[in-house]
């Protein structure tokens, strides 16, 4: 029977099905971080349960860490106690930890792939919704709550119902200056924040195939923003070339075996999907969001919709009031004071290179504070080796140390109330970047151009 990529991997991980439609579903890799794990460890201990498969777990400190002076003790006592708790738990249970100061520390969804921990055909979970990022390798990867973190700790399994399948195909070639981030913001703006709820998405089509691994991760990362359980892309040469030689990837003979197996992971021609959406890459422009959910996005030179459905009028009105925008308005010319380049959506080396390439020899506008937070220690190291740090510094951008930072503003990296921030992260929810902060989501390229111009510009005129 013809099977989708998703079904091939799902079926291979069912330990058993129980009456009523739930599967005992096996998890290959479990990533943890300081914010959603402490209560799970506490639960495990309170029930007197052993940790079932510690060697299938990896931990990092990312959500709550400072991005300056990481060599010093964390100032905020609550943040410090969370990070200390993680270190203590990992020590006690024997879990590999990439804590602060470790050469592999970084945002959990950046380090998994770059270390080769994330591989095709695997099932991978983390107590963080953007775990969907890892699907870029042809894995079933999704975010879980803390109770489920405990379940995986105790049994390496979850009890799940099989989601429905959706395929999103983007054909053709992206225009100059249109990036993976624009592609996914475009798709989300079409489908809405709940448009893929209940589904697991496979991205396909020549525009998706043409993306680098970094670009594919950006796309899969934001699947959750339209409600999808996860997103995935069939592995191919791009995937194998990226993984080859990475520290946790299979080596030598094993590598050959692995590639042979991974090459069977694609959706068969007649595979069924409960929902299909097809888009043309040529229709996608550089995007920006104007509201307080990621589906409120538009072409950067477009106008905010003047009218919305009656059922959404209240929410949209509330959102635009929060943002200080009006229906029918264009954002071109809006002064911007903050630019944040980072997060698990766009903090990989390719993102930093793209920013550096654009700002080389230019200066950020004086009223703009522009911070760049690399996704990991390895990204930071590579940026320094390539001299990107100097280019960025000369242009007035501040290169910080790795962490989630202003993506969720749990640490001190917050945007002040009322201020506008063009951000490469994935969420523009009210208060996401700090109480009252106003976030406009965009690609790293749009963020770089905005920082230099000091306002939103029609970037299409800068491209080519």
């Amino acid at each position, binding site marked *: 029977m013809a099977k989708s990529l998703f079904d091939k991997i799902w079926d*291979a991980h069912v*330990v*058993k099905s129980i009456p*009523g*439609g739930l599967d*005992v579903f*096996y998890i*290959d890799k479990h990533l943890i971080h300081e*914010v*959603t794990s*402490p*209560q799970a460890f*506490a639960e495990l201990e309170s*029930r007197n349960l052993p940790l079932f498969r510690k060697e299938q777990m990896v931990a990092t400190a990312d959500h709550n860490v400072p991005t300056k002076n990481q060599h010093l003790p964390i100032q*905020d006592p609550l*943040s410090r*106690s*969370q990070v200390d708790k993680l270190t203590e738990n990992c020590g006690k249970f024997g879990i590999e930890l990439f804590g602060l100061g470790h050469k592999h520390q970084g945002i959990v969804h950046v380090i998994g792939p770059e270390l080769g921990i994330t*591989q095709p*055909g695997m099932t991978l979970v983390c*107590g963080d*919704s953007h775990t969907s990022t890892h699907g870029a390798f042809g894995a079933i990867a999704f*975010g879980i*709550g*803390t*109770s*489920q973190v*405990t*379940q995986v700790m*105790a*049994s390496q*399994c*979850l*009890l799940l119902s099989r989601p429905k399948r959706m395929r999103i195909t983007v054909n053709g070639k992206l225009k100059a200056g249109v990036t993976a981030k624009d592609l996914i913001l475009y798709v989300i703006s079409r489908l809405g*924040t*709940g448009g893929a*709820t*209940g589904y697991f998405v496979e991205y396909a089509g020549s525009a998706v195939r043409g993306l680098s691994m970094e670009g594919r991760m950006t796309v899969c990362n934001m699947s959750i923003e339209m*409600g999808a*359980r996860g997103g995935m892309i069939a592995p191919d040469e791009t995937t194998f070339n990226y993984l080859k030689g990475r520290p946790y990837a*299979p080596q030598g003979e*094993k590598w050959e*075996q*692995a590639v042979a*197996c991974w090459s069977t992971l694609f959706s068969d021609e007649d595979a069924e999907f409960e929902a299909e959406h097809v888009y043309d890459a040529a229709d996608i422009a550089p995007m920006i969001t104007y509201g307080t*959910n990621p589906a409120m996005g538009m072409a950067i030179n477009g106008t905010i919709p003047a009218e919305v459905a009656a*059922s*959404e009028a*209240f*929410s949209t009105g509330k959102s635009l009031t929060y943002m200080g925008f009006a229906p029918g308005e264009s954002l071109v010319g809006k002064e911007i004071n903050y630019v944040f380049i980072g997060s698990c959506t766009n903090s990989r080396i390719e993102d930093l290179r793209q920013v550096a390439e654009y700002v080389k020899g230019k200066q950020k506008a004086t009223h703009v504070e522009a911070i760049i937070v690399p996704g990991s220690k390895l990204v930071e190291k590579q940026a320094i080796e390539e001299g990107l740090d100097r280019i960025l510094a000369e242009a007035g951008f501040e290169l910080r140390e790795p962490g989630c930072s202003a993506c*969720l*503003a*749990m640490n001190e990296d917050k945007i002040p109330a009322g201020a506008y921030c063009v951000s490469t992260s994935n*969420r523009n*929810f*009210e*208060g*996401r970047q700090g*109480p*009252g902060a106003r976030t406009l989501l965009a690609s790293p390229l749009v963020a770089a151009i905005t920082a230099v111009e000091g306002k939103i510009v029609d970037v299409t005129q800068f491209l080519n």
Partner: protein
Amino acid sequence: MEKFEVLHSGAVPLPVENIDTDQIIPARFLKATSRDGFGENLFRDWRYDSKGSPKVDFVLNDERYKGQILVAGKNFGCGSSREHAAWAIYDAGFRVVISSYFADIFRGNALNNGILPLQVSEEVLQQLLDLVSQQPETTFTVDLQQQQLLVPAADIAVPFAIDAYKKECLLNGYDDIDFLVNQKEAIENYEKNRVWAY
């Protein structure tokens, strides 16, 4: 987990769509290492101003609305996987959230914490929101065993769906951990033939 059987309670209306987990509990309040006390910061930035004074026009600060049922707009709980959102709702005294649509992860987190995510059609949701807004003292009955939502005062009786296994769990106060730990033998057998494990 506490057992859930029949609930008679007033309801609190929150007619906003796409309420995300950052609104339910902002990230800056996620620094605790225990599960307790999150209720205080439920809807923090809607409930209090920047100086910490209650905002009078927010429904949770409105004396007229009381009860263990939250009635909220479509696509409730989208955004992050933080279970703190479910803990905050539970800690603030809610046992049921009614909406026309729930985000997947939130739905799972709610069920794992003894909160019933009760999904109704958009028409029914609108009817319920109008009703409680106008008559705050209206009492709802949620009968999990019968899978019925009843509002006698308005002659409303709607059935709701719930996974049979999850229903058993809620009724008995069990959770998935108990179940999974008992599957150890099957899991170890599965592990002998794991695929693609490099």
